[in-house]
């Protein structure tokens, strides 16, 4: 199985690389459009600013390829910012378009923190809950995972919501899925055994 981690720019990719390596030997970090299309599984990591990340993908000529990745049917997992760019757009530092692969928008957690009763970034090992329809994989998706984020996905289609956590009575998407496209708001590669388990499930086609 050929696995590619897309080089989205400025981030620690080494941990993700090593996490995947625990289960599969053929893993490479790549920004070559052709190589990416030949992969059996793709990881789309990312940290930092939405606009920057999109800019990097465009510069590397990967943006247009990723926009059509739903038609290629290659399983892809976006992580953290890599999950957020799967949606339509973000208002981080002004409007910015996303890949539009999954219906939804990225908004600041400030919007649901008007009384300032939690801190941003939202950081910690947070217990997630399965959404209706995904109870059969609750042993993989319900656990404490490591989150660190200031933005979150809104207006998403309920059937694409796999798991979530609550913040000020708002459901914060933890995992989303639409056909071959999976997104994790948290960092599975930084979430100890339960995170590694989730990566394994994705690699085995069980997520």
């Amino acid at each position, binding site marked *: 199985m050929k696995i590619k981690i897309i080089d989205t720019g*400025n*981030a*620690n990719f*080494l*941990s993700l690389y*090593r*996490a995947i390596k625990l289960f599969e030997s053929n893993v490479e970090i790549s920004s070559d459009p052709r190589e990416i299309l030949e992969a059996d599984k793709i990881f789309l990591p990312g*940290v*930092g*600013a939405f606009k*920057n990340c999109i800019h990097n993908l465009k510069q590397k000529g990967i943006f247009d390829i990723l926009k059509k990745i739903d038609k290629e049917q290659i399983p892809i997992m976006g992580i953290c*910012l890599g999950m957020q760019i799967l949606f339509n757009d973000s208002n981080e530092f002004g409007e910015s378009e996303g890949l539009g692969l999954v219906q939804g928008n990225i908004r600041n957690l400030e919007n649901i923190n008007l009384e*300032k009763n939690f*801190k*941003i*970034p939202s*950081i*910690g*090992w*947070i217990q997630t809950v399965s959404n209706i329809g995904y109870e059969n994989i609750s042993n993989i998706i319900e656990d404490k995972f*490591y989150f*660190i*984020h*200031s933005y979150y996905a809104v207006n998403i289609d309920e059937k694409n919501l796999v798991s979530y956590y609550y913040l000020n009575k708002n459901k914060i998407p933890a995992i989303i899925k639409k056909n071959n496209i999976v997104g994790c708001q948290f*960092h599975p*590669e*930084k*979430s*100890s*055994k339960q*995170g*590694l388990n989730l990566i394994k499930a994705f690699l085995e086609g069980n997520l």
Partner: protein
Amino acid sequence: MRPTRIISRLDIKGDDVIKSINLEGLKKVGKPNELSKKYYKEGIDEILMIDTVATLYGRNNLQEIIKKATESIFVPITVGGGIRSLEDAEKMFKSGADKIAINSQAVKNPNFLKELKNIYGSQALVVSIETKKINNQYEVFITNGRDRTNINLLDWIKKCQDFGAGEILLTSIDKEGTGKGLDLELLKFVQNIVEIPIIFSGGVGNINHIIEALKFKNLDALAIAKTLHYNQLNINEIKKIINENKDN
């Protein structure tokens, strides 16, 4: 409130984890990779590695240590000590650091924080602040508590927030390495003014110190060094106490 994160703090000199008292005086306590692997297996939430002599001697040998650590540790790793330029930061992230902690260089040039934030994002940026009360005012110190800055702690925290810090690592110089309890006065002083998460560091010597500190709101994270290195407390025991007290 979500459970307080427990972070093991490894102060590193050369190839060794060392332990200091009041950020002075040194004793070797183990090897960074052996200790971090042990803490990972026991369920630590995060690992913090600080190169204690990097600023003083203008060098940094943490890269190899982190590269090795990421082979077997799958929790967040924060790295600090002697990060003075964007190149230094890039080396750390490429070696497997998830976050970097900036101290002296932020004081010298606060715009450095903005530059880092724009490239790596706030979530990867921790500002490390060492503080001590001088004439009844908390003042910021640099170079492991050696040098005064004449900067007021509150002013500095606000500036760090404005300039893009995602977290504050706050070390009480008076309590650091003493094992005599956290600086509760400092904790009380900052708890309502800091809008971003704080990692409190310095003074944990036994489980009662943690119970005392958990009574305060907004104890986002606790960095523990010596007490873990000397097996005076274990991670399971700490987590149990935190879960029992998390609604306070």
